[in-house]
């Protein structure tokens, strides 16, 4: 335990910002483009919500861009990802078409979940993105099970289980991490620590506020990472990913970033001091920080930044247009996907058609 702790503190330090000399400029530009894409996508998403193009609950990744892009940069196609409901950016950064993601938010047939899931329930099987889950902690046992399957079948890859800081206080956390450590599963428990579970601070929710230390109960290694530094996240993930895959040593990543807005788009964020939020947003804006670093390092200039901004603007507009033009799912298909293996005495197309007809009579 003592040793582990020392090691962990060392790591926490080592996860500091790195210089860009050793990096491939094109890679860095790609990261920036991705981060900006997520930023603009979410800003437009919030706009679309107020325009009532999007319904239900909607949680944004604003402030989390470096965390997401850094994580995805470290993963391989073999890896699987499970997340919570704050997942738009994860699906896009993992390679899903932004149009298909926006279409899902619009509830269209062309959406990544065929319009059945919505903002909190995105899925992309081809990209090994195994779902956004809206019950706090619900994705933890599932992700642990995916890691179990990889080990059982002797397949390469690891499973990343993303969650929020407040999720470390629910029972599923304890059971999942114990099983992962006990059975040496290739899993990374990736905590997006934005300091809040809705209005509750980490300190108000967890008796051990240093979340990376909570693995001690399972002899599981943990590290704190600066979530506003795309390279820090990428490198820590790479290192721990390899350890998980090759040594069957799961780990906790406590990735710190700042939540730019309320918990969801309908949260007015009254419980936080507006001034402080403004200050922190300026201080911890991953996109801005990265733009500065890249400029200082002479990797990009204002022209490139402007051009990239325009490009992203276009890309997001295209996503919105695609979503807008896409068709709604048909009521006649209401019972499609009910069961994977057909079974008698279950409604199907005919019953759905009857409902559709009745709707004609207004429902």
């Amino acid at each position, binding site marked *: 335990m003592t040793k582990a702790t020392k090691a962990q503190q060392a790591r926490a330090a080592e996860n500091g910002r790195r210089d860009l000399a050793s990096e491939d400029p094109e890679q860095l530009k790609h990261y920036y483009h991705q981060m900006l894409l997520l930023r603009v996508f979410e800003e437009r998403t919030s706009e679309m919500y107020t325009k009532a193009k999007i319904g239900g609950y909607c949680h944004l990744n604003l402030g989390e861009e470096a965390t997401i892009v850094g994580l995805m940069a470290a993963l391989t196609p073999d890896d699987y990802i499970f997340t919570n409901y704050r997942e738009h950016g994860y699906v896009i950064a993992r390679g899903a078409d932004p149009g298909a993601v926006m279409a899902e938010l619009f509830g269209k047939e062309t959406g990544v979940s065929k319009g*059945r899931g919505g903002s909190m329930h995105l899925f992309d099987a081809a990209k090994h993105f195994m779902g956004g*889950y809206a*019950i706090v902690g619900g994705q933890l046992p599932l992700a642990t099970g995916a890691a179990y399957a990889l080990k059982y079948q002797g397949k390469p890859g690891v499973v990343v289980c993303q969650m929020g800081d407040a999720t470390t*206080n629910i029972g599923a956390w304890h059971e999942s991490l114990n099983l992962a450590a006990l059975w040496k599963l290739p899993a990374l428990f990736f905590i997006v620590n934005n300091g809040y579970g809705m209005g509750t601070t980490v300190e108000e929710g967890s008796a051990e506020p240093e979340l990376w230390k909570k693995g001690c109960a399972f002899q599981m290694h943990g590290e704190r990472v600066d979530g506003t530094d795309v390279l820090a996240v990428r490198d820590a993930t790479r290192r721990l990913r390899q350890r998980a895959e090759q040594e069957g040593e799961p780990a906790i990543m406590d990735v710190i970033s700042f939540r730019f807005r309320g918990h969801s788009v309908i949260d007015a964020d009254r419980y936080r001091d507006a001034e402080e939020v403004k200050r922190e947003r300026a201080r911890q804006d991953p996109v801005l920080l990265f733009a500065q670093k890249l400029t200082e390092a002479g990797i990009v200039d204002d022209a490139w930044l402007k051009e990239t901004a325009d490009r992203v603007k276009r890309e997001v507009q295209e996503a919105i247009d695609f979503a807008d033009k896409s068709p709604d799912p048909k009521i006649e298909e209401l019972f499609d996907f009910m069961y994977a293996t057909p079974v008698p005495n279950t409604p199907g197309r005919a019953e759905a058609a009857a*409902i559709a007809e*009745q709707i004609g009579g*207004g*429902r």
Partner: protein
Amino acid sequence: MPVITYRQALNDTLGEELARDPNVLLMGEEIGKFQGSYRITEGLQSEFGKQRVVDTPIAEEGFVGLATGAAMLGLRPVVEIMTINFILVAIDQIVNHASKIHYMFGGQARVPLVIRTPSGGVGQLAATHSQSFENWFAYCPGLKVVAPSTPYDAKGLLRTSIRDDDPVIFIESLALYDTKGEVPQDDDYTLPIGVAEVKRQGTDITVVAYSRMTVIAMQVAQALEKEGISVEVVDLRSLRPLDRTTIIDSVKKTNRAVVIEEDWRSYGIGAEIAATIQEEAFDYLDAPVQRVAGVEVPLPYAAKLSQASKPGAQDLINAIRRALQGGKRWQK
């Protein structure tokens, strides 16, 4: 009587009970500093302090069980579960523990606990955030389950629930929070648990409903009146104990019945109502009891699919017409 919202009626009642009895406390996620996800507890933490209005970590099993244990020692916790979908992680504490403690230990311990939670769907909250599980709790001996449909009932039943010495599951509805109605200000106004109410007198058919569906039933009853169809509306108010007498008396008068429920049809609340009516009013029934309920799918997000899956006024009207078409048996 002043006209206030369902939300205000709940907020007032919680405040009054906190003021009345120092052993009453509120507990739940985001009910204090955040003012409550749906603002039911707005202002109460600033008024009564963090000792009486307790923000919890996300640990429903933990704090529901904690509230149950605290109740065993004499506190009267009123727990908020943000929505009924999240109660599944706490259900072992409610059903295997809170509901059994008084009986299983021979009456040596009481559990004066209230669990408030909104059930059902609104907007496009989709599969994990639009469910109804009140039938699960109504199934369990040892629990009391209430589901008020108006601000008036919400106040009377919440007061009674908080003052009751048994665990009470208090079912609310997101779609009702902004509805308005008259609410008595009288300090000892309460409503009894386990008693249904005939919310509207009628002679042609009985519509049995609870919670938000009662509002739809009342609207439909009014609309059909113009057509000369006289609908009696029975609001269950309590799902456990179930007031069978009020239901049966009504059906014996109207000879026809429809039950409307927001939950899934198979094995839902309506099944028990229909089974009860055919058991106790068989010879009075001129047509089968019709059920209007949610379509049996994990509620899809897409607006059209979501709408198509939820029971509405038109579905009720169609069911009433079906029931009225069912001719008198002896004419067959």
